[in-house]
């Protein structure tokens, strides 16, 4: 079976997700300006410990190999280690994303003693100035301190997770060197206009010239960095980047949010992409296998406005979330289309309504002033 046939099969969906993202709380001590889930305050409806464990039991029965736990800041939950241990007991691997605040020496040792745990520490700048402009004052120091604790606890290879933006794109070599110095692995992902990212998108998303810079860096560093397969929109620039190069939303991945709602992917927390809830009759399994939304996402793609472009097979029209939250149609080109087709559409549009995320748990005071981009 060729790689293309495999991708075609995966696009039709599989019996259970390969992995899924589970954001276990909307609470966060930080207030990053690009937060994809607009986190800040806890939601009173968040799953209880017992409900969370029931979700894990269901994922075990589905043979979901691993889950990506995020938030919010997941370590804020009092039962964080309970959840981790329940996952481990049921042979579900856990990768969790954290800002590092709560990884003190004791927690680092506890994490190091667990077998199926991967940790991603978020860092969006190689220095405090670059990082803290996005993630908030003091966040660079907290992340570095967490890395130091993990190293001292002999945790092994943790990951440094960078959302590539306009101001850190020149630091990719430095990030790699930092990761190497810790024996860590570098993970780069694409900035999306999701959550508060909609407000910071215009200031943060890489320029057209920088897109090529990212592409070339990724081509040169190949398999030594993780990307979560998130840069396939760049493939129209040349050879394909490593990975499956397809949108996995509702096909091989999905999101469970802190209150148990199931969305197509972590970047589309909006009613239009809500498939159901783990509280529904039949639970998560039923949502994954039968929800109208997921079944429709598994239908053949329509190339839409990209039909006449020869590159659709390589870039797949880009990212659904990036289009949706910039006000483009789902079969329009990606707003960061490397050939500029998306930007042309954005420039042409006179009045375009930008959808707002359904959930917003941001705290009242913002660390930076968002740009008003609700109507273009």
């Amino acid at each position, binding site marked *: 079976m060729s790689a293309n*046939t495999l991708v075609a099969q995966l696009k039709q969906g599989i019996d259970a997700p390969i992995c899924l993202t589970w954001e276990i709380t909307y609470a966060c001590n930080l207030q990053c300006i690009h937060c994809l889930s607009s986190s800040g305050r806890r939601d009173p409806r968040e799953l209880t410990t017992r409900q969370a464990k029931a979700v894990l039991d269901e994922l075990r029965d589905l043979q979901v*190999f691993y889950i990506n736990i995020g938030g919010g800041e997941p370590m804020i939950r009092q039962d964080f280690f309970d959840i981790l241990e329940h996952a481990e007991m049921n042979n579900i691997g856990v990768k969790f994303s954290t800002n590092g605040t709560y990884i003190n020496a004791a927690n680092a040792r506890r994490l190091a003693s667990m077998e199926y745990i991967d940790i991603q520490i978020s860092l969006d700048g190689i220095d405090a100035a670059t990082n803290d402009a996005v993630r908030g004052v003091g966040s660079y120091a907290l992340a570095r301190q967490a890395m130091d604790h993990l190293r001292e606890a002999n945790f092994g290879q943790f990951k440094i997770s960078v959302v590539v933006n306009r101001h850190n794109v020149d630091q990719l070599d430095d990030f790699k060197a930092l990761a190497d110095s810790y024996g860590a692995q570098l993970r780069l992902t694409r900035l999306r206009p999701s959550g508060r990212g909609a407000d910071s998108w215009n200031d943060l998303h890489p320029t057209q010239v920088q897109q090529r810079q990212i592409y070339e860096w990724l081509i040169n560093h190949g398999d030594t960095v993780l990307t979560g397969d998130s840069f396939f929109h760049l493939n129209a620039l040349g050879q394909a980047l490593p990975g499956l190069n397809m949108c996995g939303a509702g096909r091989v991945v999905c999101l469970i949010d802190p209150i148990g709602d199931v969305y197509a992917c972590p970047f589309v927390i909006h009613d239009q992409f809500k498939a159901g809830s783990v509280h529904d009759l039949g639970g998560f399994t039923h949502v994954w296998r039968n929800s109208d939304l997921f079944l429709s996402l598994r239908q053949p793609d329509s190339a839409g406005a990209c039909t006449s472009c020869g590159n659709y097979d390589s870039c797949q029209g880009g990212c659904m979330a990036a289009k949706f939250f910039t006000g483009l149609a789902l079969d329009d080109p990606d707003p960061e289309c490397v050939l500029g087709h998306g930007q042309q559409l954005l420039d042409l549009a006179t009045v375009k309504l930008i959808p707002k995320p359904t959930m917003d748990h941001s705290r009242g005071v913002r660390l930076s002033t968002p740009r008003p981009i609700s109507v273009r």
Partner: protein
Amino acid sequence: MSITLDTAFELDPRVSLRTEPFGALAYHFGNRKLVFLRHPDVVAVVRDLAKYQTLADTLTAIGVHQDRWPSFVSAVESLHSSDMIRVR
């Protein structure tokens, strides 16, 4: 090491297999590698590697025609190099 039809293999105990319409997914909880087994026959061979004396015996037992053996040897080589299976 070189892989031959006479080698005896087994699935690494840290690997979990999940059947899918296209074959199966194999996930290694140690090195976190995910591998797509893209044909039901490959899945059957991988499942039964430890059941028989050699790779050739497994292929025979599963009923894989000898014409196809070379492609199974290379599939097994690649699974071995990613530590999904090991020599026993």
